[in-house]
């Protein structure tokens, strides 16, 4: 299984570069450079990481084709590859609706899926026609996006819960089987360590809440989360952010289904189960990569496997 870690979440560039060098030297396969609503512009950070590392793959994203034009996305991927070699992958997805609204980018719910998948197809085709070898992934959660991801080189599912992942894989395998080289990965919030007081651990709880609140309504209904999530959404709208009250309103039980939080042994068991399900990539989302210790812990666990 390919392991990757999301960087560029809250850190300064120099902290991100230090962690990128740990990843590169000590053996995780991939860095994913997160973009908006994180502060630093991912393609430029990816360039700096490429200059400071030599072998790890560098993923750019999640990048929103609603914030950036397809032309700009093709341009930054091709410029990265021309300048630093064929080490780059791209992850597309609509992005955080609330954060985008705050910068004047309004998404119409019904059009988002079509617009995102349309952009994916154009971007992937243009990169291929230009002779650029990079995998384009779609970040997906709802059924339409999951099925749409078959037009990409792979999907990164924004789930951690095994039941939800199994459901997503069933969606993917409905009708036509994915192509043989189609890559299936998961990209949940992660925290390896003591998770007894989940709600109190703001980092992982906030990340989990962010994913839960963005959950597709069909999925929320299907798994019985709808009431909690609707209430939390209203609170976020009123408060303009995810705070402790929002986290509490979702509750431990729901939050834990939207993040991996556990010990290193639990992580190993978890990734083995994922592999059995057919998942070939695990991207450790925030807060795991926020601290250098978090990255070093991953590297150690990986080395011990």
């Amino acid at each position, binding site marked *: 299984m390919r392991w990757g870690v999301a960087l560029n979440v809250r850190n300064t*560039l120099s902290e991100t570069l230090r962690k990128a060098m740990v990843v590169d030297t000590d053996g995780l396969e991939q860095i994913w450079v997160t973009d908006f609503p994180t502060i*630093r512009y991912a393609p430029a950070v990816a360039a700096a990481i490429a200059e400071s590392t030599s072998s790890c793959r560098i993923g750019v994203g999640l990048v929103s084709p609603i914030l950036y034009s397809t032309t700009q996305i093709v341009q930054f991927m091709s410029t990265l590859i021309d300048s630093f070699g064929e080490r780059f992958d791209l992850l597309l997805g609509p992005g955080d609706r609330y954060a985008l609204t705050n910068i004047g980018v309004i998404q119409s719910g019904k059009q988002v899926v079509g617009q995102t998948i349309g952009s994916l197809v154009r971007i992937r085709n243009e990169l291929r026609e230009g002779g650029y070898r990079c995998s384009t992934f779609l970040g997906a959660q709802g059924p339409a996006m999951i099925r749409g991801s078959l037009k990409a080189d792979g999907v990164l599912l924004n789930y951690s819960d095994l039941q939800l992942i199994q459901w997503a894989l069933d969606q993917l395998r409905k009708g036509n089987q994915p192509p043989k080289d189609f890559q299936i990965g998961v990209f949940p919030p992660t925290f390896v360590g003591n998770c007894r007081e989940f709600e109190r651990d703001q980092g992982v709880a906030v990340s989990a809440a962010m994913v839960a609140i963005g959950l597709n309504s069909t999925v929320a209904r299907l798994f019985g989360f709808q009431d909690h999530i609707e209430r939390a959404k209203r609170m976020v709208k009123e408060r303009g952010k995810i705070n402790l009250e929002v986290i509490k309103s979702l509750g431990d039980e729901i939050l834990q289904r939207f993040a991996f939080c556990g010990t290193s042994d639990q992580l190993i068991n978890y990734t083995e189960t994922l592999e059995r399900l057919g998942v070939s990539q695990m991207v450790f989302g925030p807060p795991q990569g926020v601290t250098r210790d978090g990255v070093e812990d991953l590297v150690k666990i990986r080395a011990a496997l």
Partner: protein
Amino acid sequence: MSGSYGVSIGITTHMNVSATGWIAKNADSLGAKTVWVGEDIALGQEAFVLTAATLVQTKNVRVGTGIIPVTVHNISTLARVGLTLDEIGNGRFAFGLGIGGIQDLERHGIKIKKPVTELRNSVETLRSLWAGDTIDATSEVFALRGYDLGQERKTDIPIFLGVRGPQMLKLTGKIANGVILSGPFDYLRYAIKTVNSSAEQAGRNIHDIEKVVWVPTIPTFKGIKERVARRVVALVIADTPDPVLDMLTVDREKVNKIRETVAASSPKEGAKFVDDELLDIFSISGTKNHMVDRFDDVASIGATEVVIGPPFSGEWREALVELFEENASRRVVT
């Protein structure tokens, strides 16, 4: 000889990576003051990755955008890009901004009613975000609600404005750290004077505002054909607005003939009417001695930096080396 000024290199996103990479790798040793990265909207390399790549391949030279239209990017993206490039360059980044060429913008479906106000709003918003403020702001092209960069540390990124008209020049004198100018010599003199006078009215020291002059530089002494120079100048003349032409003591009939020919046929045809006088007014070309003489002339009217930019053709690498050497040799104290 003029006073002290810097010599810089201008690149554009439409250039290929091998050319921009060579310039990045050699900018420090050539002694360039700045590498300016111009954005040809939606063409070639992505401007911010090219700027980042240039920053990581250099150690001392300043790297700036010259210019990025504020109208084609979300303002939050510009704020994030500024912060990121400033960190990558460890303080060597300068943000060159502008509204963008009217025709370019129209081609992308963008119409701005009040460009001076838009540019002022954009600069103020960016500076507030870099200062750590949480912003609610709206303009013709952006709307921010409770947005901030989550920064505790204030980031001070120099802003250069690429402008042309009188109101824009006055705005630059009031609020910018520098100006990027392009145009014939008499226009440059007027523009620098306007920026300085506006700065003085705003109580600023005119020396706090850098004046960067980026005009077509065509080293015909190294392989690049003079007809290329004339073609470039024909195109520049065709794009020069009437108010700028009105400032010049050139034969308007000659100029009009070139504009009509470029519009009706091509820059190549228009080039046939570009004589030596027009070549010298609208570009810096010729031998290295003549070109450096012209750099000195431009500096004598108040420019603090002269940019050697595209077209890069012929033996342009050798030409760049020789131009920098010639310039440096004139500044050696004996």
